């Protein structure tokens, strides 16, 4: 068994939302019970619509924010229980992040070299020459030429910028990289370049990825394990193959059937999802998915389902538990 890098148990994150003068503030449940394990060299993909808590999860894992409740261990150390600053600093270096928009995440006034070496300046006591050397090594690793060191971000295309962002994330030798929609702003041909780079880096450095995306075709290709989230909760979680070939939760089935396929022969049966994601401030009672679910009945409006193992993957659905569901044909 590989080394366990992240262990998350029942993570919750609530934000207080003001609802008006003299009104009690409400809580927005951005995350409502997320558990998973992440091992060395593996990729966990987190998928779901916008507003389902993917990015909140990323912020908690990178220790930008603290969970309201639940247990999070990074590299065997419980984050909530450590008070010592040096250990926390160490943990922050273990988990690094690549952001979605390569045009917004690089400072336009800094040279590429400075952008990549900034984490070193802050976290290590290396000399200027050593830092310079490390940056050049890293630039070579992600496929950037040496002479780019003195250039500014505006001189680069989207794909190159994402390489710069990846170099910056990797310079502290992290064990886990959180990738928040790393390729969704890129063209197909460039997207393939960046995905290949990520796969190669993972094999070379034994990195673990948390891959946040809404593009299921990309997720299917890159992930070992998938977690489908809906309104702050995982609804289906399991090995990539199982989730994609035999999706069990109605929401997973709908997501898969909504994803366009680059195949022209024959029209596929599409499950229509009506409506949009309900507000996380007052989620529907019972199963959060019940207003949009085609299998929902009275029980679903009252009883909140729990994650249970069916086949290879864990599913939280009453319809699955009561076997009232037809399976979507594997595509």
């Amino acid at each position, binding site marked *: 068994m590989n080394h366990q890098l992240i262990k998350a148990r029942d993570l919750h994150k609530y934000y207080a939302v003001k609802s008006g003068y003299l009104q009690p503030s409400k809580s927005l449940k951005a995350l409502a019970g997320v558990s998973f394990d992440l091992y060395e060299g593996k990729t966990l993909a987190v998928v779901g619509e916008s507003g389902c808590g993917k990015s909140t999860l990323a912020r908690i894992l990178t220790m930008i924010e603290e969970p309201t409740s639940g247990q999070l261990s990074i590299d065997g150390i419980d984050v909530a229980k450590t008070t010592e600053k040096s250990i926390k600093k160490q943990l922050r270096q273990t988990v690094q992040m690549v952001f979605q928009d390569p045009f917004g995440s690089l400072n336009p006034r800094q040279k590429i070299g400075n952008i990549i070496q900034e984490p070193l300046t802050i976290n290590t006591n290396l000399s200027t020459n050593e830092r310079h050397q490390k940056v050049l090594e890293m630039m070579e690793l992600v496929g950037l030429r040496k002479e780019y060191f003195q250039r500014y971000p505006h001189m680069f295309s989207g794909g190159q910028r994402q390489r710069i962002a990846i170099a910056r994330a990797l310079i502290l030798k992290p064990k886990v990289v959180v990738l928040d929609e790393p390729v969704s702003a890129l063209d197909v041909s460039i997207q393939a370049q960046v995905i290949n780079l990520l*796969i190669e880096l993972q094999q070379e450095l034994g990195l673990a990825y948390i891959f946040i995306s809404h593009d299921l*075709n990309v997720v299917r290709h890159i992930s070992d394990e998938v977690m489908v989230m809906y309104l702050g909760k995982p609804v289906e979680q399991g090995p990539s193959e199982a989730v994609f070939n035999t999706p069990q939760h109605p929401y997973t089935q709908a997501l898969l059937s909504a994803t*366009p396929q680059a195949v022209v022969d024959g029209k596929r049966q599409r499950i229509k999802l009506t409506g949009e994601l309900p507000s996380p401030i007052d989620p529907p009672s019972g199963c959060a998915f019940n207003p949009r679910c085609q299998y929902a009945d009275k029980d679903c409006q009252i009883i909140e389902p729990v994650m249970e193992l069916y086949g290879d993957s864990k599913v939280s659905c009453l319809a699955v538990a009561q076997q009232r569901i037809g399976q979507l044909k594997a595509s």
Partner: protein
Amino acid sequence: MALLEISNLTVDFATYTGSLRAVDGINLSVDEREILAIVGESGSGKSVAMLALMGLLPWTAKVSADSMLFDGQDLLSMNDKQRRKIIGKDISMIFQEPMTSLNPCFTVGYQITEVLSHHFGGSRRSYNNRAIELLHQVGIPAAETRLNAYPHQLSGGMCQRVMIAMMIACQPKLLIADEPTTALDVTIQAQILELLIELQQSHGMALILITHDMAVVAETAEQVIVLYAGQQVEQRSVKELFKSPQHPYSEALLNALPERAQGKLLNPIPGVVPGQMDRPKGCLFNPRCSYAQELCRQQPPELQDGILCHYPLVAPKPDLDVRTQ
């Protein structure tokens, strides 16, 4: 006769560093009730070509074409006033970012009725009723109350529906959708695409769909034009293109998709789209093309049967004798 016929459309932008050719000789024709997709990477000129058709380009742009006929009328020779009668009424366009293409200072109802009052006139009550009807048509629940909502009160999918309602308000003959779903989630994307096709069929519109997503093309369109660096490299029916692409760029685009990968690594197209300064000699795609020959590096190809290539691929596999070096 085709509804829209454009031949040899060229758009040049005057920049500080000289003239930039964003669109280079595009020919297209759209019949009534047809869905045409235009695909290409960013910077391939797909939006600029359509903006040129709408007459929405800034003054730095110089548009020229051999002909630009819409429903038998020549768009190039008419003056701005005549053109405005067609644009927005018979041809309308949906833009990429629904949140930014609606005016945040006005209610949704005002923005929809503005179109109606501009093109038809009539009483306020009549077009308020029409606006409610339109919102119903695009599937917005509680349409009466939504008329008074501001764009920030609606989600991205809702805003896009409002945009669509606005654009079909005058029952256009041609609807241009510029990446209508790129900013949306997959489930909402599916809803919006379905809505567009439903409206296209019920209203008998022609639809031009601009996208970079090959999967969206496969699921919706009938005809497709592939653009690269402002040039039209391949034009065919969608079925044929997906079965046997004939231009190496179309083939490379399809092969770059994750679902077509063999093994763990994908097949990217090396390099990037050439810009203003680094335009290669000969065929524009030659530095990135895996089949490029000496002729490709020297001489620009000419359009033959809708394909811009010296050595078009032969179905189903390229003729290896000609191509291997």
